C-alpha cells in the first residue's frame, strides 16, 4: 500500500538515509529498529514529506506521494505521531486532537464521529479533554499524539518511538491500546520505530532494522513476506 523505493535523504549535506526501501501493507504492523541517530525519525519524516528526497520514490497505492506537498498526507489518510509529542501547548487536548480535522476542513458531523472514535479507543483522553496541551505529562502527551494521528490516519499510522520514556504501566497501557486499535481498524497499516530490539516483538508482524541510514536485515514474520528481495 505504501512503498518507499531506494529513498536517499541528505540533511545539512550529510547523507542520512541511503537507498531505504520498505513496504507497509494493510493490517500489517511493521517495526523499525535502530540505534540513536540511525535514521528512524528521518524515515518517517521522509514519508510525511517533511524532508526533501535526494533520490528514490515513495508510492501510496501506486501514486507518487513524494511529489505531493507534506500537508497532503493527512488528507490521504496518513497519521503521524512525532517522537517528542509536539502538542500545541495553548490548545486544549481536544483542540489538539481536532487540529488535523480542522486543517482538512471536515464537516462537524465527521469531526465528531472521528473524535468519538478516538475517545472510544483512548477513554482517558475524554476525561482530560479540557486540559491545556502544555499541561500533560510525557505519557499523557504520547496518548494525545497517538489520538491526533488516529484522527486522520485511516490508511496508515506512523509512530516515532512511542514507548520511549514511558513508565512500565503506561507502556503496557499504550501497547493494549495499539492491540485494540488493530482489532478495530483491521486494514490499518502501522509503522512503529523503536531503539531497543525485541521490545515490540509481541506487536510486530515484521521487523526491519536500520543502521547508519540503511535498512539492513529484514526479518519477516510468516505470512508477511517482503516482495522485491
Amino acid at each position, binding site marked *: 500500500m505504501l512503498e518507499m523505493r531506494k529513498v536517499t535523504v541528505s540533511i545539512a549535506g550529510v547523507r542520512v538515509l541511503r537507498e531505504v526501501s520498505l513496504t507497509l501493507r494493510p493490517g500489517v504492523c511493521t517495526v523499525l529498529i535502530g540505534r540513536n541517530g540511525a535514521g528512524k525519525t528521518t524515515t518517517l519524516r521522509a514519508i510525511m514529506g517533511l524532508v526533501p528526497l535526494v533520490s528514490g520514490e515513495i508510492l501510496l497505492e501506486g501514486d507518487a506521494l513524494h511529489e505531493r*506537498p507534506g*500537508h*497532503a498526507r*493527512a488528507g490521504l489518510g496518513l497519521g503521524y505521531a*512525532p517522537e517528542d509529542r*509536539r502538542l*500545541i501547548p495553548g490548545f486544549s487536548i481536544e483542540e489538539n486532537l481536532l*487540529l*488535523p480535522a480542522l*486543517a482538512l476542513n471536515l464537516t462537524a458531523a465527521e469531526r465528531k464521529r472521528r473524535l468519538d472514535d478516538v475517545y472510544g479507543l483512548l477513554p482517558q483522553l475524554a476525561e482530560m479533554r479540557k486540559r491545556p496541551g502544555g499541561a500533560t505529562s510525557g505519557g499523557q502527551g504520547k496518548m494525545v499524539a497517538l489520538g491526533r494521528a488516529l484522527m486522520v490516519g485511516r490508511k496508515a499510522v506512523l509512530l516515532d518511538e512511542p514507548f520511549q520514556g514511558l513508565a512500565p504501566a503506561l507502556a503496557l497501557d499504550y501497547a493494549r491500546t495499539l492491540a485494540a486499535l488493530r482489532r478495530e481498524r483491521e486494514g490499518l497499516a502501522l509503522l512503529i520505530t523503536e531503539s531497543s530490539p525485541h521490545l515490540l516483538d509481541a506487536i510486530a508482524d515484521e521487523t526491519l532494522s536500520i543502521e547508519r541510514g540503511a535498512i539492513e536485515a529484514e526479518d519477516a514474520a510468516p505470512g508477511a513476506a517482503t516482495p522485491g528481495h
Partner: protein
Amino acid sequence: MLFAIVPLIVDGLANAALIFFVAVGLTLVFSVLRILNVAHGSFYSIGAYVAASIGLWIISSGLNPWLSFPALLIAAALVAALMGPLIERTLVHWTYGKGEAVQILVTFGLFLILEDLQRIVFGVRSIYADTPMALLGVSEIGGIIYLNYQLLLIGLAVLTLIGLRLFIRHTRQGKLISAVVEDREVSEAMGINTRRIFMMAFTLGVFLAALGGALATPTSGVAPGLGAETMVLAFAVAAIAGLGQVEGAAVAAVIVGVARVLAIYYVPALDAVAPYLVMLVVLLIWPYGLFGTTQSRRI
C-alpha cells in the same frame, strides 16, 4: 493643569492607535514567518499614499466626500491584496529558514525598492488629504475640545485588537495560524498548508500596516521618509512589548504614543528620541520586552 493634560492624552492615544496597527502587523509576521521584516514600515507609507490619492480623487471628481471613509479601508485592502501575496511569494519566501543576516539584508533591499517605487509613483512632494478629519469636526466635552476623528482612531484600534484576538482564538484560519506559530513541521504533518498560512499572515500584516497608514492620512501629510520613520517606531513598540505579543503591542503602543506627545509638549527637544528612550529603559530592565520571554512565540 489636569484639564490641560487630557487633550494631550487623547492626542497620544490617537497616535498610539496608528502605531499599533503597524506594530501588531510586524509582530504577527514575526510570529508566523519568523522573520523581522525591515520593509514593514513601507506598507504603512504606501497605504497612506494610496489612501491620500484616492481621497483627493474623490474630492476632485465631485463624488460624495463621505466616500473618503470607505476609501481608507479600500486603500489598505488594495495594497494588501496586490503586494502581500506577490512580495511573500517572490522575495520573502526565499529567506525562510535562512539566518537573520540574510533576512535583514533581503528585507532591507525590499525597503529600498519600495521607497524608490513610492518616489516614482507618488513624487516627492507632501500630499494632504484631510477630508475625513474635516467632515467629522470636533466635539466639546466638559469645556475640552476633541477632534472626533482622533476618537474614531482610538475606537478602531480597540476594535482591531479585539477582532484580532477573536480571529486568532476562535476562527478556523486563526487556529491554524496559532498551530503554525507553535510548530510548523507538526502543522504541516497534520494537514495544514503552511505555505498558504505564511502568505496569509504576511498579507494580513501588510493590510494592518497599510490600514495604519491610510488612517493616518487625514491627520498629517504624506511625504517621503514616512516608511522609515514608521518602521523604527513599530520596531520600538514591538521590542517594548516583546516580539510576538498582540495585546502587548497595544500596551506598548500606548506607552510610546503618550510618551511622544508628552515629550512634544513638555520637552520638545526629546520629541524624536522619546520612543527610543522608553525602549532603552524597558529593554534594560526586561531584555525580552514587557510581555516576552525567550521561548514566547504565542500570538
